[in-house]
């Protein structure tokens, strides 16, 4: 779930963790009632500061993705279809934004990108 965690990215780690969880919920990887790993477990596994995990979970809780029950753990909430699709949309936009930034640095025009995207989507990359 958290394979793409990149500490060198300017995006803060807690945000990356929260994004990954959101995406997993949006993509159906996590369903209602599923238990998220404990802070202790996750911070040890990812080797990140426990505070980072706490912060990510707190954000998710505030947004209604998860709920923390004292002593029992953190559970995935019932998330509405709309919220899920919005999350997916946002994830896609984040990807594109990164892509565009990279392209700008390399001096590629938007048309070049559009062509490449079409090409890839049509299976031309194989």
């Amino acid at each position: 779930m958290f394979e793409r965690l990149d500490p060198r990215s300017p995006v803060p780690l807690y945000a990356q963790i929260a994004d990954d969880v959101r995406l997993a919920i949006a993509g159906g990887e996590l369903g209602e009632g599923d238990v998220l790993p404990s802070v202790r477990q996750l911070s040890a596994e990812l080797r990140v500061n426990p505070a980072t995990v706490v912060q990510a979970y707190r954000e998710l809780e505030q947004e209604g993705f998860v709920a923390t029950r004292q002593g029992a753990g953190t559970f995935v909430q019932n998330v509405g279809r709309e919220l899920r699709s919005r999350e997916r949309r946002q994830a896609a936009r984040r990807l594109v934004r990164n892509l565009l930034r990279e392209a700008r640095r390399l001096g590629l025009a938007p048309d070049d990108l559009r062509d490449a995207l079409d090409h890839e989507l049509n299976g031309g990359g194989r």
Partner: protein
Amino acid sequence: MTFAVETQGLRYRAGRNFAMEGVDLHVPTGAIYGFLGPNGAGKTTTIRLILGLLRATGGRIAVLGESMPAARVSVLARVGYVPDRPHVHPSLTVAQSMELHAAFHARWDARWATELKGQFRLADDRRVGSLSKGETGKLMMLLALAQLPELLVLDEPTDGLDPVVRRDVLEALLAYVSDRQASVLISSHLVHELERICDWVGLMDRGALVAELPMREFKSGIKRLYVTGAPALLDDTTPFTVLSRGPANGAAEQWLVRGWTPDMHDHVTSLGATVTDVIDLDLEEGFVELLRSFRDKR
């Protein structure tokens, strides 16, 4: 904010080549504080001063609210220490060194120690001197953790360890920290290792504390800007700090700035210049840039 470690105007002199002048270090309670700096910057010396292994020539040190080295006995009972070089008696076995350590630490958690020993795959009857570097590192971390400290002081704990061991050691450390909300002061010159676990960073070079700030601020605040048409001088109204300026490709200049936010584009524009690109720096790059600007200033 309370501090697990706080120094004020710490001074120390060793020989002719090394001196520390007025180091003000603040490790917030509950934080994981990454103590960075190149080899020979004075990290180990600072740590030894904090633990009372060396005597400062000036300044004040408070650890866990108590003054050092006056309260060293009660402070050391609450501090776990992993030194840069193994300090455990090499002729003792793993079990014996654990027993010795337990005898001196009232809060020793024998059960967890046994658990960690299994987790680290340390055999009871192996002599410490015959352990590999990785195993020694794990044993020292075990001893520091099982005494249930409120503050962990780790001096290059993973230096020279292979990735697997490093992972084991960090996992145990983080599990402990999340269980006990302990504070950690961890020194390293391997910046990327600290990048994901620290929430505070202190940067030391040549006996001085170059910078000390929360990791978030460090990572989001330090940028490299490419600027064209930059004025020769910047006035005091500039909302960010320019750490260094240098030529880039063509007419552009390269600025290293701190405290940058996107809404500051306007200010640059008002100076008649244009920011053509903003590059995010990771900790290591930021660290290198900070050091460079610090050394240039001297």
